[in-house]
């Protein structure tokens, strides 16, 4: 269980969570993720949705042992800061077989993964996580 989020919350975010859509500001050209209602840099509301690259470089990472309630079975959780070129994002890192494989500068790629489930017979929720790109394994 993540933060006990509602179905509608996932549904509202589907474009950014599942397809990695960010926003590009037509005034200043900067890209941010997930999309806001105005550009966080210049304040312009003239934004367009763009699909972000699914591959990037790992800038920083952490292995989390102090995980919140409900996720202790999933400990440790890997989390990273990723440079996609047009912008940076943070995301959970997955498929980390050996934590020593996490290094600054390695290539990572987005994959759709489960994040939460409503008990045994309920809904299963997904989102994009990043894994070390195949070439590095």
């Amino acid at each position, binding site marked *: 269980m*993540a*933060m006990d*989020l509602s179905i509608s919350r*996932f549904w509202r*975010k589907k474009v*950014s*969570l599942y397809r990695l859509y960010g926003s590009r500001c037509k005034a200043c050209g900067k890209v*941010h*993720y*997930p999309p806001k209602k105005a550009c*966080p840099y210049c304040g312009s509301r003239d934004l367009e949705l763009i699909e972000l690259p699914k591959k990037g470089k790992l*800038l*920083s*990472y*952490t*292995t*989390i*042992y*102090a*995980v*919140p*309630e*409900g*996720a*202790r079975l*999933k400990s440790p*959780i890997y*989390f*990273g*800061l990723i440079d996609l070129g047009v*912008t*940076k*994002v*943070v*995301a*959970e890192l997955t498929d980390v077989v050996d934590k020593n494989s996490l290094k*600054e500068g390695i290539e990572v790629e987005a994959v759709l993964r489960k*994040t*939460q489930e409503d008990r045994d017979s309920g809904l299963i929720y997904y*989102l994009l996580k990043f894994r070390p790109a195949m070439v590095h394994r």
Partner: protein
Amino acid sequence: MVVYIEGVGLTKVGRHYGLSIKDLAAQVAFNAIEQVGEPEGIDYLIFSSALAPLQDNQLDIAGYVSSYIGLRGIRALNVEAGEASGLAAISIAKSLLESHQADKVLVIGAEKLTEYVSSKAYKQLQMLYDSDLRSFYNIGFAADAALLMRLYMNTYDVDRETLSYWPALMHSNAKENPYAMLRFAIKPDRVSKSQILADPITLLDAYPIGDGAAAVIVSSKDVVKAPLAKVTAIESSTGLGEIELLDDPLIFDSLLNAYRKLSSIADVSQIDFMEIHDSFTIVAPIILESIGLAERGKAPELIAEGHFSSNGDKPLINPSGGLKARGHPIGATGVYQVAESALQISGEFPGIKVDNARRGLVISLNGLGSNSYVALLEGV
């Protein structure tokens, strides 16, 4: 307009299983009120807490605390700005005095963090960061600071052991502070060997989970009788607050902006001491570098060499022990910082004393700077 601090109340940060948030609030409020004599004349209660709805199942806590402590009828309001709530509350109190809506404001900061197990607190504290993306992940309260710490170490080529001097310094200061939660000294090399929370952050890099409360009475010039210190100016600014949005995450944009604003309305030179928001080890050097007190990437070295300590040059930083070792009861912290600073200036602080302290700076922020507050306190 200058406003005056004339009464303070503090309680030791810790695990107060026997006291509710309202009990803690009452304790410090009564202490503060005792110093000004009577509760008569207090015309506003500003309460500061962030987690009361979650830990204490209480909304409008300011309203309920008013009658709990015998101030029924007073105007009251809770202020929430995450970890910056306390200094935001002082700022609102100052505004009320400036706009002549009040002459004497009781500010209480109180927070319980130990009503549930730590893992539940981690989940609640995750809300300090932008929920738009982060709440979909189970990352807890230390993930963002961990990413920032590794980025800092790599960018400036600073090693882990150099950074460990900060928590050691905070523990050594907190040892003297009767209100501190962690009153024991540690050697720097113990920090990296303690339990890992979110690497490279260890247990000794993070603020402890503890309850606490602090109160101050803020008065206008017209009614003040025996002030401890005056609050000359408070400024604040919002910022991007997210590591991925900042082109340069190693400077807190909101703090830089708030500090510039403060510098434009007040003289910020010759500061004797500061109380800064060192929630995690890494946040301290970035604060010092954001306000220009150290060159970029150089603060850890200065700290390790003994600058900012009680034997070093002024300003002395966090004589209280800081968030790291005094403790960080989220919404109460800013009020602790102001109360401790007022006592420092009046010469009555019961811990490490700053010689001839006349001017102190208080810095508080939420998360990695979604909101930053800066206050200048001076002797009367």
